[in-house]
């Protein structure tokens, strides 16, 4: 048994050493991307980019907060050229920590509407998602739904469910309200919605829709792409949940539905800025956008590109008319208010 263990260890060391030589491409030009995304279709896009430009793309994947921390700690010694993460709030955090650099690119300006990129050009949205109301058609008639604000009315008491206040999607939602309604009204909204919660917030976005189907609540506030992902889940029962619920885009007659992006920025200490910009331009272009957005059932940010059939079935909608930079700017205040009103 000991001999077996010994030979196993030796075998492993040999494999390890040989593994180190994998994926090394000493001659060609390359960029390193810190990315939160992890989809098989992305690799096809990266290969296409390499074919067109000769620039190889190395991806390091990880959670958004983790990647930001890593960039911060590696500072000027980082190998990263591009950071791709979800939520404008997080990108703003990377910007204020001085991890990104501004980019002037006519291609990006043309491909990406101005409210979906940073006001100072530190980051550029690539795909959009909406934070919508998901309801059970047996218990809620869509005509009863109108706005996020209406959910704070007494008739919704014990019927609303969403994630925790520590979740960045809710923080950004709250940050957008601070911008649109002002701090006082936003606080009143947070208070009202907290009073109407069907349970102490817990779980992820999928769990919220399951709770609605289960009968624990009638309306969930959640992101659109989770519906798409559940419809294509490997678990048939999750598909059933996604097909049961209805999707409602709130505030269509007023301020618009809350929209957020996943976005890319060039790192401050990139040693290949030109290639990094070229890469983001490629991802914002018509060729890449469809596959890049569809991988996660998100809306392409480039308006010339068709959206996924599922999203088409929900129809066009009116989005909040704000520059997403404010989500990051208000994020700290949003968190404080949610803590103060007791949104757990």
């Amino acid at each position, binding site marked *: 048994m000991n001999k077996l263990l010994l030979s196993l260890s030796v075998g492993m060391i040999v494999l390890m050493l040989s*593994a180190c030589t994998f994926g090394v491409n000493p001659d060609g030009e390359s960029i390193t991307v810190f990315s939160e995304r992890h989809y098989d279709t992305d690799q096809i896009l990266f290969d296409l980019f390499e074919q067109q430009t000769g620039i190889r793309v190395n991806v390091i994947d990880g959670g958004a907060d983790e990647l930001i921390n890593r960039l911060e700690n590696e500072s000027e010694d980082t190998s990263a050229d591009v950071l791709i993460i979800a939520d404008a709030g997080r990108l703003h955090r990377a910007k204020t920590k001085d991890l990104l650099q501004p980019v002037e690119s006519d291609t990006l300006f043309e491909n990406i509407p101005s409210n979906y990129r940073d006001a100072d050009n530190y980051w550029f949205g690539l795909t959009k998602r909406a934070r919508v109301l998901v309801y059970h058609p047996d218990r809620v008639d869509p005509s009863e739904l109108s706005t996020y604000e209406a959910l704070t009315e007494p008739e919704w008491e014990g019927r609303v469910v969403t994630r925790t206040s520590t979740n960045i999607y809710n923080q950004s939602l709250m940050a957008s309200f601070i911008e649109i309604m002002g701090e006082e009204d936003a606080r009143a909204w947070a208070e009202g919605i907290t009073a109407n919660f069907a349970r*102490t917030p817990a779980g992820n976005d*999928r769990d919220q829709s399951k709770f609605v189907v289960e009968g624990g609540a009638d309306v969930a506030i959640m992101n659109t792409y989770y519906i798409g992902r559940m419809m294509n889940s490997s678990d048939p029962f999750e598909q059933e949940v996604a097909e049961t619920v209805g999707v409602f885009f709130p505030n269509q007659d007023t301020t618009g539905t809350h929209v957020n992006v996943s976005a890319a920025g060039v790192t401050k200490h990139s040693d290949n800025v030109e290639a990094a910009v070229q890469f983001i331009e490629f991802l914002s272009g018509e060729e890449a956008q469809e596959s890049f957005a569809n991988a996660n059932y998100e809306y392409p940010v480039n308006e010339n590109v068709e959206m996924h059939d599922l999203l088409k079935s929900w129809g066009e909608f009116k989005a909040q008319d704000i520059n997403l930079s404010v989500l990051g700017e208000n994020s*700290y205040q949003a*968190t404080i208010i949610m803590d*103060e009103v007791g949104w757990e």
Partner: protein
Amino acid sequence: MLSRIKRNINVFSVISVIAALLIVIPMLNILLEVLSPPSAAWVHIRENLLNAYIRNTLLLIGFVAVFSALLGLFSAYVVSRFEFRGRNLLSWMLILPLAMPSYIAAYIYADMFSYTGTIARFMRSANIPLRVNMMNLSGAIFIFTMTLFPYVYMMSRSALSSQSASFSENARLLGANRFRVLSRVVLPLLRPALVAGTLLVVLETLNDYGVVAYYNVRVFSFAIFNAWFSLGDTTAAIRLSGVLMLIVFAIIFIERAIRGKRQYSMHVKGKPVEPKKLRGISAFIVPATLWLIMALAFFIPLAQLFYYASLTFSDVINANFIFLIINSLTLAITATAITVFVALMLANYNRGTKNRFKKGLLKVTNLGYAIPGAVIAIAVMLFVHGIDRTLYPVYRLFNPDTGRLVISSTLIMLTFAFVLRFMAIGYNSIEASYDKVGEKFTEASYSLRAGKLRTLLTVDVPMIKHGLISAAIIVFIDVIKELPLTLILRPTNYNTLASEVFRYAREEMLQESAVPALVLIGVATFAIYYLTHYNKKGVAANVREN
């Protein structure tokens, strides 16, 4: 004076001091940060959140400690003192829940009770109108108790099996009844093991982030991550870690104070307790209880994972999958070997000492376990980056084109963090063994003029082999399951089974995480099986020699 210092310099002291320095320096960064002026976020946390954090943390660790101590003690006592069918199997299987990472159990249980989950569907079809919500404090207590109680079980069982029968028999002869023997003889002798096991459970609970974040149970580790990421305030995060460390110190201090000067060492001489055969109804009920514990803690979540794996394995398994396994194994074996080695050196250095400096040194080296993984990760990262930047001129002598982050981009950084983090586990297990064997053999060996190393290798190590092996099992399993350190410190694209499980879970693809989770659990199960069985042979050999 000089000669005294010289006498004190030996292999143990040198390694201990170096290890302690390496562990202390990164921690100092954190402790110094606590002294900096409070930030606005800290004021906010103190006003609005701190009370809830303290209350929830105390509730969580209080209940988890009591329940896991009860479960662990009960199962250890039954397995070592009674004879029943399936006893041999259970005696090692009861360690298996350790192979199930808490975060996986948490995801699986929440899923099974959610609308689409197996249990909820079964209840609906059977018309049982019972809805269980796992995602709260009680759910978290259940998950931690079920996945961590084997720490208590292992330690108590190894202490019970080496408890000599003569104590209990003498007490019986003196007229004590079974209960009195248990409460006045068996339990007090068991105390160091019971406390060490429960302490491990508490520290693991305090360290977890995956379970409490998903269930939204607002405890300290949650608060630290939240201050750090949501409020973007590292200072407040570190300050919270400081408060957490104070709580841990208080727990350890209270335990030591209660223990006082009493010593619980005893020599394993005389025959071990002969197990009593269970008869009648208890021959059925008692084993059934143990199997029920096993089902809840291990087999039910495992079955659910197998079902999900059957749905997704063709999408998940590809050529890279083998590297996940190799990476996890390499990392775990290396980190375990180093941790156990250093822990052994420290334990030797500290045996029976009354020297304050040594005791202080030891406390510091065991601190790692009380600090959340994520905070250790940052401390280690800053430290190693500092070394790299200092050594940059040296690197350039070898390779003029080198980047600055040389050590930081290797596994050394992550391995170092594991050693720092898990030192206490290795150490406590070894210390408990030393407590048990006492010092007379070592002293005899010294008086026969055997050197320190020779004594260690020929006298101490064979006697505490049991403890060393359990230290190795626990550290190995802990490393292979570990998340925050792995995520933050792993080299570029160095994926392990744990990081892969977490990636899928983060993307809300629980079904896809089943395959790497199962392989992880499989490896840990193999480790437990191999080591427990190897262990038995070792014990048998020892008995024969006696």
